[in-house]
Structures are given as C-alpha cells and as structure tokens.
C-alpha cells in the first residue's frame, strides 16, 4: 500500500519520493519567505507612521474592540492547533481524523473571517474608512488618523485574502483526504498546507497587538 502511494504520487522530475518531499517542503518555506517580505512592506509603513504620529495612532487604535480582537486571535490559534492535529493524523494514518481536523480548521477559519467582516462593517458604520466621509472622535488630526485606518484595512484585508486562499487550499486537501489519498508514506500536501496556514496565523499574531493594543495612557 505504501509503495503504491509513493509510486503513484511520484512526479517524473524526481528520482525518489524522499527527494520530492524535501523539494516540496523547501519550496513552501521559500514561498513563505516571499510572503514575509510581501507583508513586510506594510509593517514598514506601519512602523514609519506610528513613530511619526503616536498620539493619533493611539486614539485610532482605541476605537477597535480589543476583546473581539483577542477572541479572534484565540480562534485562529485554535485553528492552527486543529491544523497541526490534521497533519499528525496523516502521519499516523488516520483518514477519519484528518478529515475531522481539516473540517474543524476550516470552520474556525470561517469564524475568524466572519468576525472580521463584522468588525469591518462596524468601521464602515462609524465612518472610520479613509476618504471624504471619514471622521474619528477625540482627535483634531483627521488626516493623520486616516493613515492608521488605511494601514488597518490594508493589513487586515491582505491577511483576510490570505485566509480565504487558505480556506480554498483546505477544501482541496479535504477532498483528497476524504478520498484516502494521504497516508503516512505520502501526506506532503497536508504538511505544506499546514505550513501556509500557520504562517497566516503568525501574521495575525503580530497584527493583533500592533493594531489593537497600542497601550493606555
């Protein structure tokens, strides 16, 4: 059974299954490095403007709901936990467990996205969207306040886009897992799917304190 999966899944350009797994895993890590640099540009912009306008950033950040942010962070961490359990299930050969944990991961990801949509909607209602109808309470620096919210929407938006793509990847993995394609001899797609999901979680681990927790004075 094992060698069957191996030969079926081995692509022509590789000599051995081991080489294929190492190459695929290295490929995903290199891709994640490109994602570090991609998000990095936004983190840089955040750093520049927070340093230049600390008070306005503090006022703007206070308008975000820390509790919702923290709960959402916990939801995402939970989904990382279920994801790694899915990989573990593949490693020990439990098809049912892989499917269950992938579904749980997708559901938790869905909850996160739902909460995010709710939060964005709130921002729209409160006129905290940069543009002509923008107004933030408790500050005279309306222009600079928009910088915070531009970054808020850009960073959480890009993150959410990555989550949605992640949900797509998980769905793909789910179908294949259900069909019994993943065994202890071959579960690389689950493994590298997991790497992607955890990475998106790590981005949020930084977004939460930077956007929601800009201190008390």
């Amino acid at each position, binding site marked *: 059974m094992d060698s069957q999966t191996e030969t079926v899944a081995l692509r022509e350009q590789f000599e051995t299954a081991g080489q294929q797994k190492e190459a695929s895993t290295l490929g995903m890590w290199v891709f994640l*490095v490109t994602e570090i640099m991609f998000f990095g540009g936004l983190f840089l912009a955040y750093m520049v403007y927070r340093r230049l306008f600390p008070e306005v950033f503090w006022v703007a950040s206070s308008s975000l709901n820390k509790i919702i942010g923290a709960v959402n962070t916990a939801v995402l961490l939970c989904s990382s936990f279920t994801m790694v359990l899915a990989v573990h299930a593949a490693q020990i050969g439990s098809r049912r467990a892989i499917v269950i944990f992938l579904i749980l991961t997708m559901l938790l990801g869905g909850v996160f996205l739902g909460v995010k949509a709710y939060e964005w909607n709130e921002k729209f209602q409160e006129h905290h969207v940069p543009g002509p109808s923008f107004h933030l309470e408790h500050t005279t620096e309306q222009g600079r306040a928009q910088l915070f919210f531009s970054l808020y929407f850009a960073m959480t938006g890009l993150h959410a886009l990555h989550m949605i793509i992640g949900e797509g990847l998980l769905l793909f993995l789910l179908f294949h897992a259900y069909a019994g394609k993943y065994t202890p001899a071959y579960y690389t797609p689950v493994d590298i799917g997991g790497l992607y999901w955890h990475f998106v979680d790590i981005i949020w681990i*930084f977004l939460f304190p930077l956007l929601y927790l800009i201190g008390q004075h």
Partner: protein
Amino acid sequence: MHEHIDSVKTYAFVFVTLLALTLLTTLVAEVDLGPLNVAVALLIAVIKMLLVALFFMHLRHSPMLTKVVVCGGLLWLLILMVLTMADFVSRKWLPVPGV
C-alpha cells in the same frame, strides 16, 4: 526519510501556552508602561511566533537549510526596516532651513 512525530500532548501544551500569552498581552496592554508597552507586546508576539514555528511548523525537526531560509527571510525584513528607519529617524538631526 524520517521524521520525528510530536505527540498530541506536546501540541496541546503549546496551544494552551499560546492562549495564555494572548491573554497576557491583552492584559498588559491595559497597564501604562510607557515605551515598554510596545517592547513587551512585540516580545510576546515573537515568543508566540517561535512557538508556532518551532512546534506547529516542525521547524525544530527540520533540516538546517530550512532554518537558514527562515532566518534569511527574517534578516531581510530587518534590513528593509532598519535601513528605511535610519532615514526617518535621522531626518531631524541636521537642521535644514524651512523644514
């Protein structure tokens, strides 16, 4: 080609720690530590990142090349940030008329 399979217990322990750190960072944000607030928040975030990377992403058991790739990525992010901030931080050091 082997791999070390971590136990569910290990993952659960890491997960609980991550939740605890999330709670911690949220609570610390309520206390005024001045400039230390940012430092503490980032420190906690870095620890959480390391836990996810080392345990959930199996970086602990990955080949050296993978670890080099990750360090390389983080180093490059640092280069982008440090050299750009070098400009913004030193802008006011030389007084220029009219600015």
